[in-house]
C-alpha cells in the first residue's frame, strides 16, 4: 500500500470524523445554558426584547434546532466555518489570524520537548543506575507532576519580574516597528518562557519514555549481535538502540502534537499569547458558537493531520509497516 493511498484513506476517514465532531459539538454547545443573543445584548449595557429578537434572528437562533444543525453541517461541508456575530468577522478569518501564533508556540514547545526529552532520555539510559540517571529521572518526575500553569506563573515571576531577562507575556513587542530579523528575534524572546513551560511537561514524558524504551530495546537480541560485531557502546546506542527505541516515542509524540494545539489554553492565558486556545476560551464565555465550533474543528483537524504525519514518519523509519499488507 503506497503512501498516497494511505493518505487518501486517512483523509477520507478524517473528514467523516470531523463531520461527526462538528455535529457532536454543535449539539453540546446548544445544550449549554446561555443564549448568545442575551450575552451580546447584556454586554451592550442595556437591552430590550426588541433587540434580543433582532439578534436572535440575525444569528439564526429563532429557527428550530435541526434546521440550525443542518445549516451548520451544510456550511462545514463546503468548508465554510460560519460567521462570528460577536466579533463581526468570518470565523475562518478569526482563526487564521490566531492560528500562526498557536502553531508557533506549540511547534516550538513540541520540538524543544522532543529533542530535549530524547536527548535526556538517551543520556539517562546510558547511565542507568548511576547518580546522574537518578537525577535526570527525578527531575523528569518533578516536571511531570508540576501543574503547567503553576510552572508558568513561577517562571514569569522569576524570569521576567525578578530577573527581567525575558518578556513575561505577549507575542512580540507591540509597536516597536521591528522588521525582518529583529522581529524574529523579538518574537523568539517572547517565545522562550511559554514554549519552555508548555514543553516541560512533554519533555518529561518523552524523556521517561525514551529512557524506558532504550532500556527495553537494549535487552533485545540484536543488540547482543551488534556487540558481538565489535561495535563500540556509543555506536550501538546510536545506530541500533536509538533507532528502534524511538518508534514508540514518535507515535506518542504524534498523538500529543495534535493535542497541544487545543491544550495550549492555559499557557496562552498565562502568557497572553494570542492563539486559538484563548480565542476558544473567550468565545466560550460569550457562547459564540460558531467560533468555538470552528476552533474545535481546526484543532481536531490538527490532531488528525499530526496523526497522518506520524504515520508517514513511522512508515519511513520502519520498513516493516506498509510492506506487511
Amino acid at each position, binding site marked *: *500500500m503506497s503512501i498516497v*493511498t494511505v493518505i*487518501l*484513506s486517512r483523509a*477520507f476517514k478524517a473528514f467523516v470524523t470531523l463531520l461527526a465532531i462538528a455535529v457532536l459539538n454543535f449539539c453540546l454547545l446548544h445544550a449549554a445554558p446561555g443564549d448568545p443573543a442575551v450575552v451580546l445584548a447584556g454586554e451592550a449595557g442595556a437591552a430590550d426584547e426588541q433587540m434580543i429578537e433582532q439578534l436572535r434572528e440575525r444569528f439564526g437562533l429563532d429557527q428550530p434546532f435541526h434546521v440550525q444543525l443542518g445549516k451548520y453541517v451544510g456550511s462545514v461541508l463546503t468548508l465554510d466555518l460560519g460567521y462570528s456575530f460577536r466579533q463581526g468577522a468570518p470565523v475562518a478569518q478569526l482563526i487564521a489570524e490566531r492560528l500562526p501564533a498557536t502553531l508557533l508556540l506549540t511547534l516550538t514547545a513540541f520540538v524543544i520537548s522532543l529533542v530535549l526529552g530524547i536527548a535526556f532520555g538517551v543520556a539517562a539510559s546510558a547511565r542507568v543506575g548511576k547518580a546522574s540517571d537518578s537525577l535526570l529521572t527525578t527531575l523528569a518526575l518533578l516536571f511531570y507532576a508540576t501543574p503547567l500553569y503553576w510552572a508558568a506563573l513561577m517562571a514569569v515571576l522569576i524570569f521576567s519580574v525578578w530577573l527581567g531577562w525575558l518578556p513575561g507575556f505577549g507575542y512580540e513587542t507591540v509597536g516597536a516597528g521591528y522588521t525582518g530579523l529583529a522581529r524574529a528575534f523579538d518574537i523568539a524572546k517572547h517565545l522562550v518562557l511559554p514554549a519552555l513551560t508548555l514543553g516541560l511537561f512533554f519533555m518529561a514524558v518523552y524523556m521517561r519514555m525514551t529512557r524506558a524504551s532504550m532500556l527495553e530495546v537494549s535487552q*533485545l*537480541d*540484536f543488540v*547482543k*549481535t*551488534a*556487540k*558481538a*560485531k*565489535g*561495535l*563500540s557502546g556509543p*555506536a550501538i546506542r546510536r*545506530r*541500533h538502540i536509538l*533507532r*528502534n527505541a524511538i518508534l514508540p516515542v514518535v507515535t506518542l509524540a504524534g498523538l500529543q502534537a495534535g493535542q497541544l494545539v487545543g491544550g495550549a489554553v492555559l499557557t496562552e492565558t498565562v502568557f497572553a499569547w494570542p492563539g486559538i486556545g484563548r480565542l476558544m476560551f473567550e468565545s466560550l464565555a460569550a457562547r459564540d458558537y460558531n467560533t468555538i465550533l470552528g476552533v474545535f474543528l481546526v484543532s481536531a483537524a490538527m490532531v488528525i493531520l499530526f496523526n497522518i504525519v506520524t504515520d508517514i514518519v513511522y512508515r519511513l*523509519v*520502519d*520498513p*516493516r509497516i506498509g*510492506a*506487511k*499488507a
Partner: protein
Amino acid sequence: MSTLSIEHLSIGLPQGADRAFAVEDVSFAIEKGEILCVVGESGSGKSMTANALMGLLPPGVTVKSGRALFESRDILRLPEAEKQALRGARIAMIFQEPMTALNPLMRIGEQIAEVFAAHDRFSQQERRDKALNLVREVGLPDPEKIIRAYPFQLSGGQRQRAMIAMALALEPKLLIADEPTTALDVTTQAQILKLILDLRDRRGMAVMFITHDFGVVAEIADQVIVMREGRVVERGIAAKVLTDPQHDYTRRLLDAIPTGKLPPARAPREVPALEIKGLRKVYRTGGGFFRPVREVRAVDDVSLTVGRGEVLGLVGESGSGKSTLGRTAVRLVTPDGGQVLVGGSDLAALSEEELRKQRHKVQMVFQDPYASLNPRQRIMGALTDGPITKGVPKAQAQARAKELLEIVGLGADAASRFPHEFSGGQRQRIGIARALAMDPELIIADEAVSALDVSIQAQVLDLLRDLRERFELSILFITHDLRVAAQLCDRIAVMKKGKLVEIGTVHDIFLNPQQEYTRQLLAAVPGAGWAKAGAA
C-alpha cells in the same frame, strides 16, 4: 597450539540466583579446524561460557577465576577496548534466535558491512562488495536483492545465514555458535548445519557449537563436552561419547532421546472416533478499504480418520497446517468447508450454543504449557470449570480432578496451587489432566511435548501411552518431530502446504515412504544416521 584453551573457568552469579556459580572450574580446548559441541540441559551454563569468551556477560555476572587463552592472550582479562577489537574480528558469535538477532530497521547489507566499519576496514565501496560476496558464500539466493532487504523480508533460515555471513566477515579464527538451529525447522536446520561444516572445511576455523540436541552432536561434532549445573561431567571424541557414555548423566540424556526404534505395530482400529472429510480452511489477512486480501490455504481438502483407541501422528514442516487441522477438529477454528464428524455428529455444522454442549467429546492438549493455563486461576478451577459447565456436580468434579492429578503423577494437593508454581513438564501434565477431566472420546495433542526437555518429554510420552491403554483414548498427535511420532503413533499422516501428502502406518512411513517430501523430512532429522544405527 590450541586456538582456544580455557583453564579452570568459574563464573559467578549475582546474589539471589539459583546457584552461586553459573560455571565452575571448566577447562577445555579447541583446535584449529575442529568443532567442539557443548551439550547439556537448559541452565547448565553453556551460554554463560560463550558469553564470557565474548566479554558479553550480563550485568552482575562476573568471571571469578580461570583464564581463556586465545592467540596467547587471556581474553577474559583484556581491557574493554581490546575485547571490542577482538569481537567480530578474531572471535565471532551467532545466536539461537534468528528472528530477533538482526536489527529490524537496518538493511541486511548494511548490517554485514557494519562489521567492517566497526573495525575500520576497507572503503565504503569495498565493504559493500565484500558484503555481497559473503551473502553469496553463505548460499543466500539473489544476493543483490538480499543485501537491500530488511530482516523481516527473510525467512528464519535466511536470517540465520545472514548472521553467519556477519560472523564470517573478518575471517575469525574462532566461531561460537549458541544453539544456532534450535529455532529452525528440521529441513532448514539440516541446511545450516551443512553450511557450518562446509565453512569449517574451507576456512579451517575452530567452532564452539552449543546445543542440547544430541542429534546435532552426532551430525557435526569432532569433540564433545557435556555440562551439568555449571560443571563439565564428560568430554571426549564425539563418536565415543555418543556410543559409550561414561557419566551417568550423559547416559540419562542419551536414553531419554527418542530413538528411531519403532514400537511393535498394533492392529488397525475399525470404529472411527474422528472422521474428517474434505476439510478446508483459508486464512484471509489484510484487507480493508484499499488493501488487497492475502489468502493462505492452511488446510486444503484434507480427509482422514482416527480410530477408537488409535494414535494418529500428524507431521509436516512448520506452517504446513497441522495446528489448523487440529484446531478445526475441536472447532476452535471454524472451517470453510468439509465435515468434522465426532461419534457421527458433525461438529463443523453446529451453532455456537449446540457446540458448547458437544464440546466435551473432543479435547485438546496444547503446545505451550505456560500459555495454556490461566495464571490467575488455581489448578482446581482449571480442572473443574469444564465438567461443572457440562453438568457434573461440583463435589464430584473436584473428586475426579484430584484423582486425575494422581493419575498424571502430580498428587492431589497440586489442585490448590497456581500454575506458576509448577515446572513446564508438570504443567503439561496438568494440561493432559484437564483434557481427561472432560471424559473425551478424542484428544488432540498439538506439539504437546515439543517444549519439554528430552527427559521430561520421555515421561509425558510414557504417560500418554499408558492413558491410551487405560481409557481406550483416541489421540491425534501433532508434532514436527518424526522421532517422537515414531515412539507413540500407530499411523502417521504427513502434511505439506495444507495438503495431506501421505498417510500410513508408522512402519510404512518410516521404512517405505512413498513421497519425496516424506523422504526429505526423514533425511533432515539431525543425527538420523546415528539414530538408525543405534536402533539397529
